[in-house]
C-alpha cells in the first residue's frame, strides 16, 4: 500500500511541476518548439532503448497471467500417446513473437510424450515449423519422424482447409512436408479427421488463424483449441476465451515470456522483455511529451 501511495504522490508532484512549468513562458516556448522535433531523434531513442537492455539485461520479474496459465494447464492435461494438432499459422514476420511460443509448446508437448501432427495455413510457415520440430522434438527429445511427429506442411485454402480436415486429414494432406505420401507414415494411420485430435495448439499470426479455427472447427467438430497469437490479434480473442471457444491464450512476446517461465525455459522472449519494457516507457513518454508540446503551442497561440 505504501508503495502505491508513494507512486501516486510522485505522479501528482510530477504533474504539478509540469503544470507549473508550462506557465513559465520560456519553458512553454521550449515545449512548443518540441513540436518541430525531427522524428529521426525518436528513431535513435528507440534504437538505443532496444539495444541497451539486450546487451545489459535488467532481468525484470515476469509473472504468468491467468490466460497463459490456462494455456499451460490444457497441455498438462494431455496423456502420453494423445494426438495433438499443432497448426503453425505464421511466417517470419511474426517470428519474434510466435517462434518462442512454438518452441516452448513443443517442449511441453514432448515432455508429455504426446504425438504431434503439424500443419500450416500460411505459406511462409513450413520451414519455421520444421526448424522447431528439428530443434526440440528431434534433437532434444529424440522424437522419431513419422512415428512421434509429422510435419504436413502448407495447404492453400484457408477456411476450406479447416473444413476439409474436419472431413479427412489424410485426404486434405495427401503427402507431408517432404512429399512423402501420408499413408507411409505410421502416425497418420491413427489420424482420420479433426475428431482424432485431443487438442489444437494454434500458433497464429492473423488470417487464417485462431479466429478461423474457432469459427469453423471449435463447435462443428468439438475441437478443443488453445492459441498463441500475435499481440495485434490478441484483443479480439478475449471474446472467444470468455465464451470457452478458446481454452487458453498467449498474447504476443509477453505471453511467450510468461509461458517460457512456466515451462522453465529462458528463451528469446524472456530475454526480450527488458527491451520491451524500455520501449513501452519511451512510447508513453512520447505520448506525454507530444501532448505537452501541443498544449504549450496552443497556449502560446492564445496569447
Amino acid at each position: 500500500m505504501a508503495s502505491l501511495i508513494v507512486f501516486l504522490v510522485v505522479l501528482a508532484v510530477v504533474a504539478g511541476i509540469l503544470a507549473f512549468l508550462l506557465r513559465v513562458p520560456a519553458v512553454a516556448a521550449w515545449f512548443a518548439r518540441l513540436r518541430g522535433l525531427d522524428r529521426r531523434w525518436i528513431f535513435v531513442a528507440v534504437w538505443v532503448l532496444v539495444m541497451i537492455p539486450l546487451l545489459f539485461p535488467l532481468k525484470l520479474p515476469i509473472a504468468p497471467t491467468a490466460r497463459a496459465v490456462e494455456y499451460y494447464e490444457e497441455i498438462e492435461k494431455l496423456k502420453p500417446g494423445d494426438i495433438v494438432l499443432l497448426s503453425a499459422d505464421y511466417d517470419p514476420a511474426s517470428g519474434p513473437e510466435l517462434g518462442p511460443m512454438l518452441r516452448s509448446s513443443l517442449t511441453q508437448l514432448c515432455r508429455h510424450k504426446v504425438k504431434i501432427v503439424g500443419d500450416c495455413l500460411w505459406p511462409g510457415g513450413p520451414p519455421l515449423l520444421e526448424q522447431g520440430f528439428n530443434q526440440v522434438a528431434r534433437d532434444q527429445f529424440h522424437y522419431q519422424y513419422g512415428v512421434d511427429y509429422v510435419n504436413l506442411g502448407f495447404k492453400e485454402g484457408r477456411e476450406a482447409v479447416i473444413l476439409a480436415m474436419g472431413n479427412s486429414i489424410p485426404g486434405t494432406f495427401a503427402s507431408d512436408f517432404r512429399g512423402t505420401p501420408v499413408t507411409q507414415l505410421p502416425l497418420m494411420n491413427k489420424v482420420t479427421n479433426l475428431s482424432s485430435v485431443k487438442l489444437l495448439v494454434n500458433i497464429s499470426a492473423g488470417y487464417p488463424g485462431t479466429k478461423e479455427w474457432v469459427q469453423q472447427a471449435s463447435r462443428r467438430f468439438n475441437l478443443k483449441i488453445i492459441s498463441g497469437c500475435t499481440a495485434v490479434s490478441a484483443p479480439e480473442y478475449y471474446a472467444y476465451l470468455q465464451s470457452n471457444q478458446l481454452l487458453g491464450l498467449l498474447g504476443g512476446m509477453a505471453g511467450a515470456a510468461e509461458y517460457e517461465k512456466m515451462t522453465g525455459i529462458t528463451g528469446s522472449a524472456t530475454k526480450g522483455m527488458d527491451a520491451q519494457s524500455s520501449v513501452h516507457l519511451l512510447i508513453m513518454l512520447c505520448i506525454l511529451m507530444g501532448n505537452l508540446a501541443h498544449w504549450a503551442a496552443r497556449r502560446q497561440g492564445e496569447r
Partner: protein
Amino acid sequence: MHIANPLSFDGLGVWIAALLTLFIFSFLYKDNPFYKLAEHLFVGISAGYYVAQEWWAVIYPQCVKPVMNGSRPIMIIPGILGLLLFSRFVPKAGWLSRWSLAIIIGAYAGIKTTGFAQGDLVEQFHASLLPLWVPGHIGVSIDNILFIAGIISTLVFFFFSTEHKGAIKNAAQLGVWFLMISFGAAYGFTVMARVSLLIGRFQFLLDPWLGVARF
C-alpha cells in the same frame, strides 16, 4: 564474441541477411537506393517463394499427381478452372475467369456464412447471457453488469436505423466510451507487437551475426 564466418555457406547467409536488414533500416534516415534494392528483392523473392509453395504443396500433389496417376481424375476440373483464371490476360477471353471466381466466391460465401453464424453470432450471444447478480460476489456482479452494458451500448451505437437522440443518444455515447477503451487497449497491444518484431531483428543482429550476446 563470435562473428558469423562469411566464408561458410551458412555464415554467408547470415551476412547477407544482416546487410539486407541494415539496407531496410536505412529507410529510417531517408529513401535511398539500398532500401529500394532490398524492397524489390523482397517482392521478387516472396513472389517466387509463393509460386514454388503453391506448386509443390497444392497444385502438384492435389491436382496434377492424382490426375496423372488416375487416382482422382475428377480433380482435372479445378485444374482447368484454375487455368481459366489466366484468361484475364486475354481481353476477349477474360470472361472465362469469372467461372473460376464463381467457385471461389460461392464456396467462401457458404463457408463464411455458417462459420460466422455459429462461431461468432450464436456462441458470442450465448456467452453474453450472464447473471447480473451473483450472490456473495459483488465484484463479479459489477463486472457482469458493466460487460452487458458495454455490449448493448456498443450495439446501439452501430444501430443506425433509428435516429440517435434522447435515451438512444446517451446509450450510443456510452458505447463510444467503451469503444474508445477497446481501441486504446488494442493500440497498447499493437505497440507491443511492433516493438517485439524490432527486438527480434536486433536479437538477430547481435546473436548469429555479431555474436555479442546469446538469445
